[in-house]
């Protein structure tokens, strides 16, 4: 979970335009320890990327790559 202060959008920093639901390691950076999606006011993700991210996480959940809850 990225820090609250000095936060910057991870995806714009790394020039990621397509968030893949198969990249479990990347998605797990944006989940709490109870596997909930971290709000964008904590991570600093831009709105566009946050929407893509949540869609990717939900896809990964339906394919049993990530659990729904813990």
């Amino acid at each position: 979970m990225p820090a609250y202060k000095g936060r910057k959008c991870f995806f714009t920093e790394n020039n990621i335009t397509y968030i893949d639901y198969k990249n479990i390691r990347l998605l797990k950076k944006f989940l709490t320890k109870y596997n909930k999606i971290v709000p964008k006011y904590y991570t600093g993700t831009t709105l566009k990327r946050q929407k893509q991210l949540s869609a990717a996480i939900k896809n990964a959940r339906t394919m049993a790559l990530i659990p729904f809850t813990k």
Partner: protein
Amino acid sequence: MTESVSTEKVAMQSYEIMVIVRPGLGEQKTLEVLGEIKGLISSNGGKVTAEDLWGTRDLAYTIKKHDQGYYAVFNFKLEPTKLQALNKPLNLNQEVLRYLITKTPEGYTLVTLEQYAEEAAKEEEEAKKKKEDSAKKKVVKQSVEKAQVVEKKVEKKESKPKSSESEDKLKDIINDPDISL
């Protein structure tokens, strides 16, 4: 205008399908099932462009009383109108636990599970290096701080006799017979 559109060939859209096949079928049977799916795509005028077989892996939660599943990913091109035709056979297939069809952006190339694993290994190594570096820095900092503390202690020791001097003075004053308290 409308005529020209209707005569034009419908543009192919690129998609990606991920399938979870029931585990414990044996290699031949699973490959048969996957072959069926590929056949389904090609029979609808599609084209399989890339494939990645993940193999059996643990599911995050049980699906139809199964703890494991055989994962497979295919990239294919298909006319958007034909996409609906894939759903019914996939739903009816008893061996397919679950499937997911997603649109892929232009210029997308399939990233295999191995590539992601390699990436993860690289990241881990970098993180380890960073940790070691910061640990070294900490050690240096600590040693510097320790040296400073030692210096301070030395200073304190030097300052102690001063206080004893003042105590002596106090005692002298107290013991002075000329001053009555």
